[in-house]
Structure formats: C-alpha cells, structure tokens
C-alpha cells in the first residue's frame, strides 16, 4: 500500500516527532535521553529523502558565522560542537581556514572585524595548515576551535543512536501534526510546516560534491569574495562539498547554470587543480527561515515547532532540541508521575 494511504496510528502515550531531518533527529535523541518515550515519523522513504539537511555543509563554525548574523547564533551554536562530539564520533576538530585573494583583502579585514576567536595568519602558516594551499594566499584567518561533520554520516549516526535506544523511525509515513493524538507533538517538518508557521519562507541553496585526486584539505576553507563567497568542506578521500548559494526563492527545481558556474568558478579560484576534479553531485534545496533568520521553537497548543534553521541546521539543531526538551518538561507532568508508557523504555 502506498505510504500516503497507510493509516497513521501511534501509541497515544509517546511524544511524536514529525520529520527525520537534523532537527527531528536531534529533538528525538534529546527527548529520549531525558527519559521520554519518543517516536519519529518521516514522509520520506529513507534517511535524507526530501530533506534539506542532506545537502548541508555541516560546518560547526559559530565564530565565522558572527559575520553577518545575529550574535545569538554564535552564543547558541557554540555548545553544539560538544553536542556533536558526544553523539557523532566522526566530528572533526580542525578549525576553519578563511582566505581571500590579494585584491579582496578588504573582505578579510571586514570579516575579521565582525568575527571573534581567530588568529591572523600568514602564507607560511596557511601552508602549514593546508599544504595544498602553499603559495596561493598571503593572509588568512584561522578559527582553531571550530569543527565540522559530514552531515549524511552524522544523520545516520543519530538514526543509529535512536535505534539503539529503542526509538522507532517510521519512514514513508505522511502525518499532519494537527491530526496526531499524542501528549506532545514536535513538528520538525521544516518548510512543510508553512501552513502552521505562516511567516516561514524558503531560501534556496545550491551545492556541489566533487572528488579531486590532487587537492586535500583537513578543514573547511572559506574563500571570501564581495559577490560570491564560497566554502569547501572536506568529506575525506578527496571528496569535497562546495557551497552554497543563498537565494530568496522557494523553488526546489534543479540547480541553475549561473549558480553552478559561480560555485565551480570560486572552487577553481581557490585552487586551479579543482578544474580536474570529478563532479559527483549537483543539488539544490530550500532552507526554512523566519523573517529574522534566527532559528526558534514556537508553541501552538500541544505542538512544538522547532524551525527556521536557515543555514544553521547542524550548528543550531542541538540548541533547538534542548529548548524542545525544556518545553516538554514544562508542558508534561513530571516524569515520575506519568504513565509508564511515556517514560523511556529501555529495550531488553
């Protein structure tokens, strides 16, 4: 029977998380760890299906993000480095390198003015950190405390952690949060929650995955440019994610030639050897954002809406999950007083 027609029934004593993107999985894990019985339902047939977290950069870069974002992003994002390290052993702590071409050094100055916790470095230090960039840049900024994850492996690790805790994830299950009878519903559908969150909008992003035999990086590298800033995140084995455009648009159609050109051009400007790289994937998706571009948890009745993660999915999902679990503690009776069903049941 097709997924959409399948009758959706849940145990009425569990917290239901709708959506298995980074927000949904982080919320489910946090709630489970705090002792609640949780179940996740997901419209897609597999992990990452139709979910913009799958296209994410996976940079845990709270201090770089200070450039052009509200200070709360850094304040609420910084603890996520420890959260991911705890839940995903593949979290890489190599910092972030920020560089600019000589004619754009003013961009480096501006970036430095707006960010914090970096070290100004010269060409020799850049070469030490990333030998393949030796001789290519004379100045840079090094954010030593930042980290990154491979978003797809990180989501798989969360799904596995949930499985081990006995939290089911039901794929191929369409569910409208308003139709669910549960003590608490956590709506993590992202942009699909628009009918409930009317000020949610889409910000389109395009990304590439390439494989180079010549270039190796140990950490995300950001190339500043007045019009086309770019980041390249290493995924291991010479594979890189190149991202990402930011376009005020809701369309999920394929990547445009212009965006692809810009991303490829910027990668080539970072290192000409990327010209020989193999293109593994070109993708586009739409990020959910609130008007202030700051992720938030809203409550409507018995439904919590962590949403608006914008370009900060992996950086801020742990913070939203913490807020959701805090709200659950306020909205639900104390764990020791409630039906045993709502408490976490450890698998035998």
């Amino acid at each position, binding site marked *: 029977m097709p997924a959409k027609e399948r009758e959706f029934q849940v145990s009425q004593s569990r917290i239901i998380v709708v959506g298995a993107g980074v927000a949904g999985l982080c919320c489910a894990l946090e709630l489970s760890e705090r002792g609640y019985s949780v179940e996740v339902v997901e419209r897609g047939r597999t992990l990452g299906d139709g979910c913009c977290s799958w296209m994410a950069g996976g940079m845990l870069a709270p201090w770089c993000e200070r450039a*052009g*974002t*509200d200070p709360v992003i850094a304040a609420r994002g910084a603890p996520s480095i420890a959260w991911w390290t705890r839940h995903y052993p593949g979290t890489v702590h190599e910092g972030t390198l920020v560089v600019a071409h000589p004619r754009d050094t003013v961009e480096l100055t*501006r970036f430095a*003015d*707006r960010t914090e916790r970096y070290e100004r470095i010269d060409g020799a230090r850049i070469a030490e950190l990333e030998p393949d960039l030796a001789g290519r840049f004379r100045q840079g900024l090094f954010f030593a405390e930042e980290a990154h994850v491979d978003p797809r492996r990180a989501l798989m690790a969360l799904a596995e952690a949930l499985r081990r805790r006995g939290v089911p994830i039901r794929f191929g299950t369409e569910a409208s949060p308003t139709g669910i009878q549960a003590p608490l519903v956590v709506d993590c559908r992202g942009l699909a929650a628009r009918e409930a969150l009317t000020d949610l*909008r*889409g910000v*389109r992003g395009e990304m590439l995955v390439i494989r180079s035999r010549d270039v190796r990086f140990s950490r995300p590298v950001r190339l500043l440019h*007045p*019009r086309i800033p770019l980041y390249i995140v290493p995924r291991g084995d010479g594979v890189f994610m190149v991202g990402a455009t930011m*376009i*005020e*648009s*809701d*369309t999920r*159609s394929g990547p*445009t030639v212009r965006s692809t050109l810009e991303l490829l051009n910027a990668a080539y400007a970072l290192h000409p050897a990327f010209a020989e790289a193999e293109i593994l994937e070109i993708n586009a998706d739409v990020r959910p*954002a609130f*008007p*202030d*571009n*700051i992720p938030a948890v809203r409550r409507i009745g018995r439904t919590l809406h962590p949403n608006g993660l914008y370009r900060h999915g992996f950086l801020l999902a742990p913070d939203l999950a913490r807020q959701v679990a805090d709200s659950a503690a306020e909205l639900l009776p104390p764990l020791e007083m409630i039906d045993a069903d709502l408490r976490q049941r450890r698998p035998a």
Partner: protein
Amino acid sequence: MAFYGVDLKSRLLLGTARYPSPKILADAIQSSGAEVVTVSLRRESGPERSGQSFWALVRSMGVRVLPNTAGCHSVKEAVTTAHMARELFDTPWIKLEVIRDDDTLQPDVFGLVEAARILTEEGFEVFPYTTEDLSVADRLVEAGSRVLMPWGAPIGSARGLNNVYGLKALRAHFPDIPLVVDAGLGVPSHAAAAMELGYDAVLLNTAVAEAGDPVAMAKAFALAIEAGHMAFKAQPMEPRDMAVPSTPTIGRAALGD
C-alpha cells in the same frame, strides 16, 4: 520631490539585497524613513518566479517598490525582466540596469538608451542607472526618462563621488530632472556631499546592508541626506583662495580681495 508625479518626503531609496535578514531590512527601512525600495527580480526569483515570499515580505513593509533589472546584460533581457516586474509588482516604475561587464558592473550606456526608449514607449516610467556622462543623460531624457540615476562610483565600491565635476555639470544641465546618485557610496558623508551638489536623492544598498549595524547605518545615512539637502537649499558659500575674516578689520590695511 516627485518621481513621475509621485510625491515623496524621504530622499533616501534603499536596495533590499544582502541584509542579514528580512527583519533587519524592515527595521532599516523604518529607521531611515525610506519610502521607496528597489527589488531585484533576476537574482532573487529563480525559475517559476518563486521569490514570492520575500517579495510579499517587502510589500508588507508598506513602501513603494521600484523593481530593477539588475544582472541584465542585454536590451532584450532587461525588457523581459521589466515586463515581469510590472506584472508582479503592479507598477509602471522600473529601475533600468543594463550591465556590460560582470566584473566592473559598469552600465552599458548604448543598451541602456535603447532599452529606455522601448520601455517608455510601452508605458513604463524608467529610472535608468547610468554614468555621469552628459551626452548619455541627454539621450536618456530624449528617450523619455524623467528621472536619472548616475553612479557615484562602481557598484559596491564604497568610494563615494568619483567625479564631482561631472556630477555638478549634470546637475547644471538638467535642473528640472530629478537626479539620484545610485551606487558607489560607502559612508554618510558621501551621501551628504551628493545632496550638497543639489542632487534630489540617494540610492543605497551595500553601504547599509553590509554595515555591522544596518539599522543604525540606514538612520545615519538618512540624517546625512537631510543635512546635505538642507545645506544645499541654504545656499552654501563658495570656496575662496584666501581667508576672509569674519570680524571687521577696521583700522588695518586691507589685504585686498
């Protein structure tokens, strides 16, 4: 001041790109009192004209929208984009940009004049983004443009007024055409300088959007624009080669004037 018969109190026009968030854009509009904002169709729309939610947000800010053809490289592209803008925003206004080169973003003045003529014939009210060149300006007016938007310096360069002489000459030649300095300004003193030349208004985007605090910077520009305009109306003194004592020098030999 009026653009195509529409009276406006604020002499600051704001672009809507590159703000940290739509909320900050809305706050910047409010703090500056801007009544007109420009919106780029090509870059923000993507296929299927799906920038709708952003445009709806801009419209909800209670300002008049001046759609632009930023990113267009040919007359045809600019004209098509103008048609789309008229349909989407229900306005005859169009800020016409035809760019020759993506690196310098310098206006293609030949294409600009041609596109301005076509669009005016089709009933558009054209705001051409041009250089300070007098002959080009003359051609644009001949083509029906009743507002001119000469650059101060290349887009996003924050250099201020590169050619004060040229901008002054343009003002002197077109005393009755509203002139708006568009592009290249970095700090409020640049905007004040433009207004002191007798310009009617200033259009800003990057200088506000990419400031550390766009809301405060928008307000700072609005104040500078008001000050510059007030100073122009108050008839500033002309520079002289010699000191002119502000107190009488009775009883001493005059230095000669």
